[in-house]
């Protein structure tokens, strides 16, 4: 053991100053209103009942008139299964292609269930065992020998002893042997500390939410023993054009404000077009359901659509007249679609020729895309 994990402390910046406040801070008012209105049974150590947690994620109106904003836009059943999983004391694994709001949902679930979304382990190829179990404060270890005082608990250990929700991001990036330390924690609900001859027992309310990316499943495939400890919920790509346009417009608006870009009129034609192209390529069929098209290798996530539009907006602001036009999004689109130079270029070309070219009001767009593709 060479690294000592430093636990997140409460001395972080106060909420008003944080660039991006935690969910439980940003939505404190909604959470308080929900708690006040909530008369359904709450599982041990839960801040809210499962029903109220689902309402927090999906949005709704409370009897006292408080409007709860939707955090997640998508099928109700996804959130219901996720919340119910946590209520049955099973760990939850959120899977999905990149940009499907896995991290976002995990944070809000933890905030609503435990009032705390900060007990977080960020998974990387270099995540050590200490980040999941515990580390040592070497100065004290040398001075005092092994003791509870010299031990530095991981976020997971703290969640166990405090009965809260721990979060593990990008679980499949964590090396397999480090992942394995989660098995005992999830099945025995204890964390042995052989150095002290002790163990930490999870108190009621402890649970764990992990996220993992569908696409790089293969990186460190979860062992079946670990997989068995989780209920798995796959977050889908947005179901309808309207839903996705809604998500993209909202996020582009928020991001644009912080970058001081001109505002896009909501439901702008260009946003619709980008989302349409993303969806048609992703679904392998045109919006009218009449023509099948091939899908490129990239994931074409909503998050990428957001970034195509945002960078198009920046182009329009700095090099154009501030109005988002086909030419501003064409090269971004090309970059998002053509990941594999050979196969994807072919897919894109075929799509341009067999779908885009024939659309009457897409002439400008077709031309811009052809130009971008030729460079």
């Amino acid at each position, binding site marked *: 053991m060479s690294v000592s994990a430093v636990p997140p402390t409460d001395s972080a910046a106060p909420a008003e100053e944080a660039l991006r406040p935690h969910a439980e801070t940003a939505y404190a008012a909604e959470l308080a209103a929900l708690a006040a209105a909530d008369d359904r049974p709450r599982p041990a150590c839960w801040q809210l009942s499962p029903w109220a947690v689902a309402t927090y994620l999906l949005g709704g109106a409370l009897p006292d008139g408080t409007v709860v904003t939707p955090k997640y836009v998508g099928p109700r059943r996804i959130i219901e299964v996720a919340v119910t999983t946590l209520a049955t004391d099973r760990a939850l694994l959120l899977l999905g292609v990149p940009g499907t709001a896995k991290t976002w949902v995990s944070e809000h679930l933890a905030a609503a269930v435990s009032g705390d979304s900060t007990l977080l382990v960020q998974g990387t190829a270099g995540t050590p065992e200490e980040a999941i179990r515990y580390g040592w404060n070497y100065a004290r270890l040398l001075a005092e020998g092994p003791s509870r005082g010299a031990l530095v608990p991981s976020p997971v250990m703290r969640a166990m002893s405090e009965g809260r929700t721990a979060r593990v991001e990008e679980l499949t990036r964590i090396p397999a042997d480090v992942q394995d330390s989660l098995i005992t924690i999830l099945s025995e609900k204890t964390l042995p500390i052989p150095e002290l001859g002790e163990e930490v027992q999870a108190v009621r309310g402890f649970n764990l939410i992990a996220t993992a990316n569908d696409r790089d499943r293969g990186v460190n495939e979860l062992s079946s023993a670990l997989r068995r400890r989780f209920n798995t919920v*796959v977050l889908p790509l947005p179901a309808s054009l309207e839903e996705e346009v809604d998500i993209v417009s909202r996020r582009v608006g928020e991001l644009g404000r912080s970058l001081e870009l001109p505002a896009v009129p909501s439901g702008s034609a260009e946003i619709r077009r980008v989302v349409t192209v993303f969806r048609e390529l992703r679904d392998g069929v045109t919006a009218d359901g009449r023509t099948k098209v091939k899908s490129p290798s990239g994931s074409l996530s909503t998050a990428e659509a957001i970034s195509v539009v945002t960078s198009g907006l920046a182009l329009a602001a700095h090099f154009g007249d501030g109005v988002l036009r086909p030419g501003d999004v064409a090269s971004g689109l090309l970059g998002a679609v053509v990941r594999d130079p050979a196969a994807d270029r072919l897919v894109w070309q075929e799509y341009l020729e067999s779908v885009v070219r024939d659309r009457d009001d897409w002439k400008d767009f077709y031309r811009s895309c052809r130009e971008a593709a030729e460079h």
Partner: protein
Amino acid sequence: MAAALAQYRPDTVLIEGPPEADGLLALAAHQDMGPPVALLAYVVDNPAQAAFWPFAAFSPEWVALRHALDHDVPVRFIDLPAAHTFVHEHEEEPEGPGIDPIAELARTAGHDDPEQWWDDVVEHQLVGDGDALAPFRTIADAMAELRPPGSEPSGGREARREAWMRRQIRAAERAGHRRIAVVCGAWHVPALAGRPSVASDDALLKGLPKVKVELTWVPWTHRRLSQHTGYGAGIASPGWYQHLFESADRGTVRWMTKVAALLRAEDHSVSSAHVIEAVRLAETLAAMRGRPLPGLAESTDAVRAVMCEGSDVPLALVQDRMVVGDRMGRVPDEAPTVPLQRDLTRLQRSLRLKPEPAERELDLDLRKDTDAARSRLLHRLTLLDVPWGSAATSRTGSTGTFRESWRLLWEPELAIKVAEAGIWGTTVESAATSRARDLAAHSGSLGEVTALAEACLLADLPDALPTVLQALADRAALDADVAHLAEALPALVRSLRYGDVRGTDAAALRELAEGLAVRICIGLPPACNSLDAEGAGAMAGHLGSTHAAVALLTDADELHQRWSATLRTLAERDTIAGLLRGRAARLLLDDNQWDAAEAARQMRLTLNPVTPPAEAAGWIEGFLAGGGMLLVHDTRLLGLVDDWLTSVPDAAFPDVLPLLRRTFSGFDPGVRRTIADRVRAGTDTPATPDRPGFAPTLDRTRAATARRTAAVLLGINHAPPGARGSAE
């Protein structure tokens, strides 16, 4: 239903259904009868006009029928006879109430999922508080609200049906029955409970025209029950209802156990721990959603999250095999023959094709009407999985588009196959059509669908063709393998040119073929990069067949230009195997896209010492694959080949020799000899540079020979040999 009947103890049971079936009802209790089954009614003179009434074991009508038979209570069907309904089949008015009453009630109660609402309110809540008849009363009241008196037009199909049913109820009362159970769609309850005058009913039913119909029982499947179109009952989840119907207690646990067994059989690792967690999740979900018991939605959500790792892929298996289910029903031998068998017998008689248990061969000349009809019949039966005939090579060795050879063998099992195929329709043609449509919807690869399209043309099923072509278009769009596309194109173009295709389909077929050709144009150059010898050989074949197919597509200038451009790309790109470049160059030359000078220029570029000799030999093979006459006529090209050949280093010669031998041995012996003569004579000084290969003047002796042959071909009496007439 079972509980209600047990509680009510009727002395007669009347069921909404075709009364012509009354004579067949007793068979429902036969030991060989196993639902799902359907009652089939058809018009005797026109079996294609048919209707099915499907029943699952859990269908209320079936439960009522079995209750009556098991308790020796008289049972009858009381709907308007099929003999009348078939006559009115073409009326504008749709069958049924025109609104979905359950959806209407669910909406009134503020639910958007009618089935869910029905399960929650009726199946789970009303039932089980002791009075089995209570839900029926509640629903009857609700229907009365939806159908206030005077809200509907009098007359019409529904009114006639209800008048007929009332008449049967009165008859049952007159016969002395006191506890009459009427099993009908809830919608009809207010109309049957209210009693308009006998006279007004009689007026509605007076002088109804009728046709002669017959009925029988046929086996059905859960899959067909779940279809919303055709004769499906539109029950989305027959397997699930069957499960509920069969399992008296602990339904969720039993369901999860069955799901686990299914998934294990398909090599998913599912343990008992999974089953336990799935049950817990389903039950907690139901509680969270305010449902008394887990329904199909909760069970499915739990299976997905716990057993399928969130994936819908294994779940699709559960959906297909359990929620829908692949159960197939049985009917006893005593049930009357199905009309498909009857239609087949009729065709066999009129086409003089006896079903014989001994194998025999049959040669057909498709220009004759009877033979063409026989061919159609055999092709249609093949589509229906009734393999009476199989394709054979003709004994007489005669081939050609007008001939077909079959080997016929009628095995007794084929009768069962015919009975099973009865599910698809009542005549061979209509059944083959629905079967082809179904195959189109479920077939996987482009090759399969192309074969199906050809089968439809051979079997002459114009009504199936649009569906098949749509499927073909879909598969073609998705298939990324240029080779597959190139394999499919010639068959399509052939059907387009020679097939007997109707106007609209021809247009669709044409669009499809052209679209396919464009895709090939786009995909071919990248697909030709870095192929090994074998791959290049296969691709050269595709090149040739696509070229021929594209040429057959007339009036497609843009496409032809595109194809020429593609060939040019292939011919000029030096990352592509010599064989393919040579082949492309030759096709361009043959097509007049390149003149001889350009071909010679390309040849000179390729056949030089810098090009690896094997590569150059490949080029020559591709270029000359169309025949060696070119070298005879164009001494310039021959000279280039000759120069190159003499410049191949000794060390490389053994490598190129087999390639060259393969190329040249493909030529006609006469051509080979002439080329050899030319080479011996020396190729350096072409006689006429502007018409390479041609002498300055006409050689009359040789021309006369050609002229004679041409005259024979044209069928004109030619002048005596040697005569020199004006025909020159």
